[in-house]
Each structure stands twice: as structure tokens, then as C-alpha cells.
């Protein structure tokens, strides 16, 4: 791996050379009622808008690679028959400036199911393959449990990753494109003192994690505790509103709606991200609902993330970003649910 270093003042230069592309990054979206800024991933036109020190965004960056609503295909229909037109809805590469390790890990997990399994999906694939990612290190927040999910650091799936060393950035370089961009600004090769500072910085960061999730034997425990009473208690709280799935960087479940155009000369096939917590998630034609109760739906969210995905890919579908717990109005958080299922709540 190639490591480089540049002084902090060079950050705007890096932004400028990358700005020949479209840049997406963390910006301040609003102030909450206590005056604390809330962040989101938006198109950034001006370096001054970029907030690289952001603690976390309320919603993951997924609208750029798994849009909440996406037209999969359109049809022209006439008396003779019909023709299908497919569009993957991406026309230019996007630079993601300032993604945290958890969110890059989320993409790597999505790659496994959406790209590296049978029937890879081109809608995700074409967007994912046109992402240029500049990762950035973060400060653990009270709701973060990425370390317990093995997602606090990231090994691949990005182009370069910046670690703030105070007066300079330490950069891991994974792609030739990233190397070339760094070549266009004032950067140098990393030397021993940079390595030592980097390691010191990593150690400090680890000490800041507070939230704990014990994942030992979790796949088995979830099976053993399938009928546990705690599921009903969480189910009573659940609003069945889908917020957790919508803010999650890895939730990819969806539904498809087909709609005839108003002029009857065409039709559209539209994908909507769904949520396993929504009432009709498992309803089949004819009306039978395999999961009519909210606690069963909530339970399946945990089964998919922490059991099913582990069985299939040897890792959980949760990166521990904690967004779901932060966004849940009913205060349902992953660490608390898992602790309660383990009988520790």
C-alpha cells in the first residue's frame, strides 16, 4: 500500500483538483432545536461548505447508490406490442469527499450481495463503480458501535483515506486515480514520524468508543431466543414506520410498482426501497401476510442483519453506525435490543 502525507492547508487544493468532477460530501443541513448542527451528504460546489470534521450524518449517503425511488425501466406501448427501455440512472462519476470507515464498509457489504452474488444488479453496480471515494477518519460518537461490528476501520473499497494528524493528513492510497490526484497537489511520501503519529492517533481513537455490542455466538443466540418475550416488548414500541431502514447505509430491500402512464401509451416500473418493518412487507397476492405483527417484523430485521447475512457472507450486515437508533423516535437501538435478547438488558 502507498502512504502519502500532505499539509492541512493543501486540503482545499485537493478539493480543487477533484472539483473537475461532481463532488458529494458532508455539509451542514440545519441546526436542531438546541442549536447543534445536523449534517447530510449533498453536492458540494464550494470548499467552504465541506464539513470534514462532521460527527455523523443523520441519513447515510445511500441516495447516491441506492436511491429511495428509482425508475428501473420505462415502456412504450402501442397496438402492436411494447418495448422496454432500461436506464441505470447514472451518467457521470461522483467523488465522495469525506466518507467514514463505517459507510465505506457498508458499501463493501452491499457489494457482496448486490455485485458478487448471482444476478449482480447493474443499477447499483453502475453507480458503485462510478464512485471515487475519499475516506476520512472520525471521532467515535456515543451511538457508534462500529468497532464491535468490525467496521471501525476499512481495508478496501475506497480510493484514498485521510487520517487527521493535527497539522497534516496521512493518506492511504488505493487507486492510480487517487495517486494521480495527490500528485497534482503538494504531497510527499510518508516517513517514520508520520507512521508513528498515525499509530498514536489510531490508539487514541479506539479509546473513545463507549457503546458495546457483544456479538459472540449471536447467530446461535438469535435462533435460541426466537420466541423470547423481549421481541414482543420491542414490538410494542415499534412504529412500523421504516425510518431505521431509510437511514441505514446497508438496508437494500425494495418493492417494485408498475404504473400505466396517463396517456396509456407507456408505463413505468419504479423501485421503492422498502423496510422489513412495514406492515405489508411479507403480504402476498390474495392478502395473506406472513408477518402481520410488528414484533415479528422487527425481529426479522435483526435476523437478516445479524444472522442471515452472517451465514451467507461470514459478516454482519450492520456496520454499527448507530443511525437507526438515533433516528428511531421510539428509542429502539441495536445495542439495547441485542443486549436484551442476550438476557443482559
Amino acid at each position, binding site marked *: 500500500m502507498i502512504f502519502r502525507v500532505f499539509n492541512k492547508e493543501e486540503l482545499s487544493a485537493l478539493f480543487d483538483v477533484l472539483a473537475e468532477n461532481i463532488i458529494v460530501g458532508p455539509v451542514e443541513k*440545519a441546526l436542531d432545536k438546541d442549536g447543534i448542527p445536523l449534517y447530510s451528504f449533498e453536492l458540494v460546489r464550494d470548499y467552504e461548505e465541506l464539513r470534514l470534521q462532521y460527527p455523523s450524518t443523520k441519513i447515510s449517503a445511500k441516495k447516491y447508490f441506492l436511491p429511495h425511488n428509482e425508475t428501473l425501466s420505462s415502456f412504450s406501448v402501442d397496438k402492436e406490442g411494447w418495448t422496454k427501455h432500461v436506464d441505470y440512472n447514472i451518467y457521470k462519476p461522483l467523488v465522495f469527499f469525506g466518507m467514514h470507515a463505517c459507510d465505506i464498509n457498508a458499501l463493501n457489504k452491499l457489494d457482496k450481495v448486490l455485485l458478487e452474488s448471482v444476478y449482480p444488479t447493474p443499477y447499483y453496480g453502475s453507480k458503485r463503480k462510478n464512485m471515487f471515494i475519499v475516506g476520512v477518519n472520525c471521532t467515535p460518537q456515543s451511538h457508534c458501535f462500529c468497532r464491535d461490528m468490525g467496521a471501525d476501520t476499512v481495508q478496501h473499497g475506497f480510493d484514498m483515506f485521510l487520517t487527521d494528524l493535527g497539522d497534516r493528513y496521512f493518506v492511504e492510497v488505493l487507486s492510480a486515480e487517487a495517486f494521480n490526484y495527490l500528485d497534482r497537489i503538494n504531497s510527499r511520501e510518508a516517513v517514520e514520524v508520520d507512521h508513528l503519529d498515525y499509530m498514536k492517533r489510531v490508539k487514541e481513537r479506539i479509546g473513545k468508543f463507549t457503546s458495546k455490542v457483544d456479538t459472540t455466538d449471536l447467530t446461535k443466540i438469535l435462533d435460541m431466543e426466537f420466541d423470547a418475550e423481549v421481541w414482543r416488548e420491542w414490538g410494542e*414500541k415499534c412504529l412500523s*414506520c421504516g425510518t431505521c431502514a431509510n437511514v441505514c447505509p446497508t438496508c437494500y430491500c425494495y418493492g417494485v410498482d408498475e404504473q400505466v402512464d396517463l396517456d396509456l401509451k407507456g408505463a413505468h416500473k419504479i423501485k421503492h426501497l422498502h423496510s422489513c418493518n412495514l406492515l*405489508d412487507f411479507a403480504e402476498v397476492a390474495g392478502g395473506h401476510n406472513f408477518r402481520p405483527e410488528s414484533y415479528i417484523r422487527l425481529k426479522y430485521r435483526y435476523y437478516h442483519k445479524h444472522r442471515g447475512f452472517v451465514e451467507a457472507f461470514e459478516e454482519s450486515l450492520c456496520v454499527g453506525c448507530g443511525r437507526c437508533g438515533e433516528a428511531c423516535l421510539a428509542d429502539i437501538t441495536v445495542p439495547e435490543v441485542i443486549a436484551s435478547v442476550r438476557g443482559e438488558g
Partner: protein
Amino acid sequence: MSGELSYLGVSLSRPRVAFFELTSCEGCQLQIFNKEATLIDFLSLVEPVNFREVMDEKSNDYQIAFVEGAVTRQDEVVKLQKIRENAEILVALGSCACFGGVAQLKNRFNDMEWVKKEVYGDYPIDTQQARPLSAEVKVDLEIYGCPIKKEEVERIVVDLLVGKAITHPKYPVCMECKANENICLFDLGEPCLGPVTRGGCDSWCPNSRMGCWGCRGPAEAANMDQMIKIMARHGISRETMLDRLECFGGFAGYVEEMRTDETNEDIQGNSE
């Protein structure tokens, strides 16, 4: 505007439609004619035979009747019953027709005579408790919203034509609000009924940073107990919440339960 309609070789009949209003602002009907870009296409799918806002002709020969507004007078009851007799499909258009809407706010007052006097003075007028169409006649289809969303009416008409079942989202407004990536109103310290209100509006109000007032009535798995707790946790008074729940009438059952709980608490409080 005439001519055979067909889709994928299946011929579709162009329904004769009529629009009527009872006690309402006629805003829902206005919505339908507000969107000029698709108006021609919309009108080629249906044949309006009765639409006071835009045409003079009147006919009682129609298949689909869209009725806007709440029932608040005896002559409206008679009118509605006639519509029911004539129509194959009676559609309640908008929150007033579905739940009583804003008009049913007057039902909060115990003394109807006092209300009448306050509003109309001594002018002689028949006014009753405001109620949804379904209190008087069988309603085949409800289109929610204050006002309705034109896109939804267009979709419903196309679906009716091609024989699809008309379904509404079962999930609450939060689902669409999060998809629109809005900042949660509770983060901004505002009350919002989004977590318990039926979606389908594309989170119209929260998109403009206005909390939801529940115009579409309850979502199908509305967790009202949790909603009460959320409001309390965010320091929003029960009365503020009740004001919102009562605004359009969709939550009447829940409101009644909450009011009863309050009365019980008062009684218990007094006896202590």
C-alpha cells in the same frame, strides 16, 4: 376526446364521471383542474358529465361520482343519497368526505345552538354535526388528503380503468419523509403526527418543515401509545397533540379513547 381506449389489446371503457361538493372549500376539485400539464390526458380517460367548477352541462347519467366535503345539513343528506343511487362507484374525495375534515371541528362543542349563534347570528340555517360520507351512504373508495394530491387521483383513475385494485400506502408518513431526507421535525422541536398518519402524500408538509397534522387519517399499524410517549418525551403537551389529532377527524376513535383516559384520570385524581 372520444375514441376507443385500449391497453395491451384490452379495450377499456371511458367512464362518465361527476364531481359534487357538500360542505367544503372545493379545494380538492380545484386540485384536479390545477395541473394543466396532464389535464388533457386526464380528460381523455374520463368523460365528465357534471362538474360545477368547470362546465355548465349537468347530467345524472354517470358511473363514478367524486364527492367532496362533509355532511352538515339535511339537504346534503338527500343530495348524497341521490348520488349514491346514480353512481356505480362513489368516491369520497379528500379528508372532509373521508373523515368530516376541518368542518367536524365544530363537533368539539357540546352546544350546537351556541355554535350556530356565534357563527351565523340569527340567520336561519340548518346545521348538524359534521360527518363523513360513510355515516350516510356506502362509500366505495376513499381518496385521502387535505387537499388531495392530483397525482394520486390520476393514478387511481388509470388503475380503475385497467382493473387494478386501488390500494393506499399502509405505512406512515415517516417512510416517505425519510426517503425525502427531511430533517425530523422532532429534532427541530416541532410536533408532528407523521409517525402515525397514513403516507401517500410524499410527506408534503414536512418537506416544507411543517409538522404533519394527520389529514390522511391513521396508518394501518398506527402505534398511538408510542406516539403519546414521543410527544411527551419531546415536551409537547397532550392538548397540542389532541388539537392535531382532532383537526381532520381521521383519528376520531383514538381521540375519544384519549379523552376518556383523561376523564378517568381526572376522576381518579379527584377521588384521591
